[in-house]
């Protein structure tokens, strides 16, 4: 029981990171209108940016957050330029294959530049544990969950209270209509794509300090988990995607209480397949995105 509760806490913490990845992913999918396979690599670049900035300029988490956000933002800009800008009207598989090619490119370049081996992440948060009855929770987990909550709140503020956010929502609902009311659709799509990627980069930083290791090939499975989480939320709904990420994190960590940790990814993907069999629209009431 004790073990179970602790796994639940771990699951919620991991789910919070997945939720942030999924939020970024569903912002990208909503704004661009096409599914992307580069999100895993975006997350990886965020983690590496944080690693190097911690290495060079002290151990302050805020610097890391800014660095990983900016690095992923810039990568998101390139993703947009290479994969989407000219292909909004082309057949869908063109930009899909372009994102696959681009993610291959980034992953292999990262393996060359950063080295193929696992790197230990520096200790940013002091390892300290709090005990609440049976449950123990570390300072690191509290920081991670707080960061995710703050980012989600900020994003919802941007979405509901600023002009930019309202334009983002308009573009993700109907591109032609937003063009007609005078929104520069391509610019908003670019900025929205970069914003989603930046959130993915922050998720990468959080994953890096949670697992204490980073690797150039870490992106593949993470991108798929981000996709799975946002499928659970109906692909474009940001709030439900966050809920989906939380679910996948909890299920993974409860799943490995039954078996060994090497089956972790199998639980995540099997859960996705089961969801697609029984409720393909996820938590949302209808299948939202035409992707």
């Amino acid at each position, binding site marked *: 029981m004790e073990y179970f509760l602790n796994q639940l806490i771990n699951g919620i913490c991991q789910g919070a990171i997945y939720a942030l990845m999924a939020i970024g992913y569903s912002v990208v999918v909503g704004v661009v209108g096409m*599914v992307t396979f580069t999100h895993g690599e975006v997350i990886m670049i965020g983690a590496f940016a944080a690693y190097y900035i911690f290495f060079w300029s002290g151990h302050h988490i805020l610097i890391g957050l800014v660095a990983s956000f900016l690095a992923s933002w810039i990568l998101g800009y390139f993703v947009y330029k*290479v994969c989407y800008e*000219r292909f909004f*009207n*082309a*057949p*869908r*598989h*063109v930009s*899909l*294959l*372009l994102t*696959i*090619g*681009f993610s*291959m*490119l980034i*992953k*292999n*370049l990262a*393996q*060359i530049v950063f080295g193929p081996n696992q790197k230990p992440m520096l200790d940013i948060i002091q390892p300290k544990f709090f005990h609440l009855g049976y449950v123990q929770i570390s300072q690191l987990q509290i920081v991670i969950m707080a960061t995710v909550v703050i980012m989600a709140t900020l994003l919802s503020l941007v979405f509901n209270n600023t002009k930019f956010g309202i334009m983002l929502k308009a573009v993700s609902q109907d591109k*032609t209509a937003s*063009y*007609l009311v005078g929104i520069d659709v391509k610019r908003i799509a670019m900025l929205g794509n970069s914003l989603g990627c930046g959130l993915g980069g922050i998720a990468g930083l959080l994953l890096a300090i949670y697992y204490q290791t980073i690797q150039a090939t870490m992106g*593949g*499975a993470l991108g*798929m988990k981000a*996709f*799975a989480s946002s*499928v659970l939320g109906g692909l474009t709904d940001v709030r439900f995607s966050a809920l989906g990420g939380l679910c996948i994190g909890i299920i993974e960590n409860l799943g490995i209480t039954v078996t*060994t940790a*090497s*089956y972790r*990814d*199998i639980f995540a*993907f*099997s859960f*996705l*397949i089961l969801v*697609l*069999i029984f409720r*393909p629209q996820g938590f949302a009431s209808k*299948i939202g995105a*035409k*992707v």
Partner: protein
Amino acid sequence: MTEQRSEKKLNTLRSSLESLQLWVRHNRGWLLAAAFVLLCIIPFFTTRSYVLGVLCRIFLYSILAGALNTINGYSGQFCLGIAGFFAIGAYSEAILSTAAKMNFWIILPIAGLITAVISLLVALPTLKMQGIYLAIVTLGFSEIVRLLALNWTPLTGGPMGIKGIPVPTFFGIAIRTSKHFYYLYLVMAIIFIFTTSRVIKSRIGRAWMSIREDELASKSLGVFTSRYKALNFMYGAFWAGIAGAIYAPYVRFIDSTYFTLDEGWNILSMMIIGGQGTLIGPIVGSVIVNYLTELLRPIGQWRMVAFALLIIIMMWSRPQGLAGTSSSIIAAKKDRRLRRRFATKQEACNDTAV
């Protein structure tokens, strides 16, 4: 003046290319026979097993990329998990021949059928949804297969893999050297291409292509789209399984590292570079990618970077692939129609604004 001259040159070149095309189309049977004879006698001229090994890989990947092409190119579904089916075929062959000591020629169809049945289970939940869900499910499935192969030690040997896979025998001759495997792979590739060309020209193939062009229209014309999509998926997976089954005795040792996602991307890039939706496309892609693999071996890690760049350049400049034609026309038409619609909307907007 110079422009005119160059245009004239271009025109003569174009007409000569067209006449060449016509000639090829006219003498197709002879050309195919000549190619077949050439491929048959290659092993007599080269004794280096390296060259034969590369040719074997080309045939093997022609089958794999062709199997993927029947799924992605002919019926317009989006499968990314071909490496998973390849792995299932290879592991079924390895397990059945080492643990059950069965004959290779009996295992061959069994491995294909096992893969096809498993692929049906994968495809069933996503048949009624749009392509991208199938893409992610197959991608996840490929990863699940790899992780199971890595962790299910009693069945698959786990990280130790399966070693000592027995070589097949053909009327008493043990297929052991790369020359023998060359002929085995050549025959399998020819059978695959012949079968696929027959299937594509049949009622089934036409149904697949109608699904690719417009699923709703083909449904309203009475095609059981979900049934044909499932059949298409099983057909592709069957041949991927066969490819796995002939791969296992060739390498004689398999473990999960052979079937990573990179392997899937490799096969996918062959299909894209060659051209989706054509019979010759995957073969062209397989020749180019495998040749490049050997050519770029000295630069090691940069090889995958080169492939990625090649995919991006291909999609930017010629999305239908080197050998593809038909899909490009459709794409261009769709593009023009969309642009026209958008333009009219823009004009309407301008009018109302005035």
